């Protein structure tokens, strides 16, 4: 009897459980949602569209086999690719913008971009809000761009402003000097080599700098390593003992004759502020010079200005053609007037030349990984001292790592706190303290979160092709090297971005005679721009060599075409020039706008084939240009080129 009763009870229990399962499945959350959608469909669509629309029922999923993902988001997000639902409430609203056009759901799913748990079929399990057991909840807003970076591996990702800013921040701050970061290399970090730094520095300066670089320069790129006083003393001794290459002999210089006022004039003529900031004004390609008088020795500065590549072979600084007297005056100006706001310094410890202290300094140099940014002879093969950041975007995070701070234990928060204060999350961290603002740290986190662990199939990934290094030889190559053209200009993707004029086809854009003049006397082509090409002091012979090479080699054959001046076409072009309102941005005949270059001397400066190509499709040559595309016909572009080539009397070049 007992067994029968037991079976009866069990049978009823099984029946109850089975019924409960079917009942629960019938009452699933997504079924209710889909019923709501069907009602909404009746209101939003007209009967004809309704009859054509596919029936809505059952779980819908996208299965991305190459990424091993299943996304069931469209089970509830039913109107996401249907424009009729633009004003519907969530979860039925159409996807914002044109993203689904470029990233169709059947190829990308949803979680690739948005994160969350794709296999879920309920609101909370999909990780719309943070779940304790799913590491990546749905990202929104700025953090969403980190997911763009999973596939878009190029440095600048179009339409992803925060990700691009973050990646540029990572490049600028030289994280790759200490950490392995895919897509970044330590060569991008610009810190001087230190093998001869003992000749360069004033001893009173180095202790202040090592204690806190921002005490010397508010915009110092070097972070604060939180060094102990012993380490500072050791490193000072070590650095001041580095005397590999002595500076050029300046004993013949009569410093008593130096004229700082003339030095200041030379400083202006050479346009040093294009690269060097002084008191908040100027460029950032070179170090800020506001307080350089307290930093460098006079003899070293003389040698550096005479031949910058002597102890810094990779320097971006060019070799001007100054005479010794001019350099003397420049040095006098720099070392007497550019004092910044330095307070009086204490003399360094007299022990600083002892060998034990130098050895301690070398150990500190290696322990803190200084060689990562400051490349040093003999230390090329030492490993990077920071942990590898490959896959950091998928790093698992334990609540215990937050050391009791009341912070949501997510990876973005961990990275943010680590960047703001590196020594709080882990007690013994060698990572230095950068003076990031909140925004800088936040965008860097967005950049870091895009570095994921999973290997993606090649069909999913976009990268920018690595540029071939451009190293011309011969007389042109020697001049390019001396005047460091590639510090500011680019050829075939190699070089700097200070200038907005890449040199790839400069020979087809500018006339040879103009180039010869310009290289010797760079004028202001566009009014109101702070950064100007410096006056190098080059000889006419050098200018001719450069111009000849550029006109022969750096050309684009598609832009070269024969040109015959045609006065009738020029008149039509002049009328078109007025009708299009070109003068609102360009100066012609001394009158006009300040946005684009002065066109008054186009007949002596530009080439007609280039003018036509530029006017026809400017964004093809310069993607961000302010020159609009007027949809000109071929004859219209030709007429305008004719008109511009007839203008030979203007120009806002500097008067020699």
């Amino acid at each position, binding site marked *: 009897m007992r067994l029968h009763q037991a079976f009866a009870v069990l049978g009823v229990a099984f029946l109850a459980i089975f019924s409960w399962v079917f009942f629960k499945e019938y009452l699933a959350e997504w079924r209710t949602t889909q019923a709501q959608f069907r009602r909404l469909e009746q209101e939003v669509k007209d009967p004809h569209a309704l009859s054509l629309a596919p029936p809505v029922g059952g779980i819908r999923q996208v299965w991305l086999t190459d990424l091993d993902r299943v996304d069931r988001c469209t089970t509830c997000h039913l109107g996401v690719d249907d424009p009729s639902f633009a004003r519907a409430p969530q979860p039925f609203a159409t996807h914002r913008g044109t993203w689904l056009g470029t990233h169709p759901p059947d190829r990308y799913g949803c979680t690739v971009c948005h994160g969350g748990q794709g296999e879920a079929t309920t609101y909370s399990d999909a990780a719309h809000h943070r779940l304790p057991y799913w590491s990546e909840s749905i990202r929104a807003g700025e953090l969403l761009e980190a997911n763009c970076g999973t596939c878009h591996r190029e440095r600048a990702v179009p339409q992803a*402003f925060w990700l691009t800013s973050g990646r540029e921040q990572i490049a600028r701050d030289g994280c790759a000097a200490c950490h392995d970061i895919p897509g970044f290399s330590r060569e991008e970090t610009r810190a001087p080599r230190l093998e001869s730094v003992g000749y360069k520095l004033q001893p009173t300066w180095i202790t202040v700098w090592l204690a806190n670089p921002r005490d010397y320069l508010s915009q110092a790129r070097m972070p604060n390593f939180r060094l102990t006083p012993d380490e500072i003393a050791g490193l000072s001794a070590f650095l001041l003992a580095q005397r590999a290459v002595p500076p050029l002999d300046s004993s013949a210089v009569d410093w008593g004759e130096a004229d700082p006022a003339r030095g200041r004039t030379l400083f202006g003529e050479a346009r040093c502020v294009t690269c060097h900031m002084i008191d908040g004004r100027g460029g950032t390609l070179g170090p800020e010079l506001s307080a350089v008088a307290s930093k460098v020795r006079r003899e070293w500065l003389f040698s550096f200005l005479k031949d910058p590549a002597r102890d810094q072979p990779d320097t971006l600084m060019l070799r001007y053609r100054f005479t010794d007297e001019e350099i003397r005056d420049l040095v006098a100006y720099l070392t007497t007037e550019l004092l910044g706001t330095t307070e009086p310094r204490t003399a360094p410890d007299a022990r600083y030349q002892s060998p034990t202290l130098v050895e301690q300094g070398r150990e500190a140099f290696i322990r803190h990984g200084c060689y990562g940014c400051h490349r040093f002879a003999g230390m090329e093969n030492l490993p990077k001292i920071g942990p590898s950041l490959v896959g950091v975007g998928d790093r698992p995070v334990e609540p215990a790592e937050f050391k009791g701070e009341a912070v949501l234990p997510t990876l973005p928060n961990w990275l943010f706190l680590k960047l703001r204060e590196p020594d709080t999350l882990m007690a013994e961290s060698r990572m230095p303290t950068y003076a990031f603002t909140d925004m800088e740290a*936040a965008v860097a986190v967005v950049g870091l979160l895009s570095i994921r662990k999973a290997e993606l199939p090649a069909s999913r990934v976009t990268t920018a092709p690595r540029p071939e290094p451009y190293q011309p030889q011969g007389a042109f190559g020697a001049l390019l090297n001396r005047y460091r053209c590639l510090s500011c200009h680019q050829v075939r993707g190699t070089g700097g971005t200070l200038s907005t004029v890449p040199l790839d086809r400069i020979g087809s854009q500018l006339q040879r005679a103009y180039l010869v003049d310009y290289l010797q006397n760079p004028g202001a082509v566009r009014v109101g721009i702070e950064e100007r090409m410096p006056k190098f002091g080059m000889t006419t012979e050098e200018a001719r060599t450069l111009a000849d090479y550029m006109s022969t080699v750096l050309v684009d054959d598609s832009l070269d075409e024969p040109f015959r001046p045609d006065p009738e076409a020029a008149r039509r072009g002049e009328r078109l020039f007025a009708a299009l309102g070109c003068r609102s941005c360009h100066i012609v005949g001394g009158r006009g706008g*300040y946005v684009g270059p002065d066109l008054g001397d186009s007949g002596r400066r530009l080439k007609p084939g280039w003018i036509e190509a530029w006017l026809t499709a400017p964004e093809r040559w310069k993607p*961000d240009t302010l020159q609009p595309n007027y949809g000109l016909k071929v004859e219209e572009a030709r007429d305008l080129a004719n008109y511009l080539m007839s203008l030979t009397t203007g120009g806002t070049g500097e008067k020699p």
Partner: protein
Amino acid sequence: MRRVAIALLAVAGGVIVGTACRNGNEAVPADPLIDVFNRRNQEEGLTRGQTDGKRLFVHYCATCHGDAGQGDGQNAYNLDPPPPDFHESLKVHQPSYWRQIIEGGSVAVGRSPQCPPWGRTLASSDLDALVAYLEVLANPSPAQK
């Protein structure tokens, strides 16, 4: 038996009441990274589309129209007639009118040709973003004035 049942019920009741009556709230954990972006968005007071529009405006338009669209850009003084003050002039027309000017140039609505056509340079979504930002400029909140 009865006393045991009453005792058990009393204990159960005590446990239920005890767990319900916990003192105070636990500290709500902070979310510092999201807070940085939220703070910035609050200060700017712009939606995401408006922020995209603002970036485009600063790059393409501000040199003539000024950073806040008040007709005081560095090039404005070279223009005759000068660009208007958007705080006043935008309200006169519909957003579709503004979009016509941005896309086809000021000459497309019968004005001088000084504002160039951007319809072939900018994508349709960019034009929408610019119009969204112009709506902000037309009705500046006190934070944006």
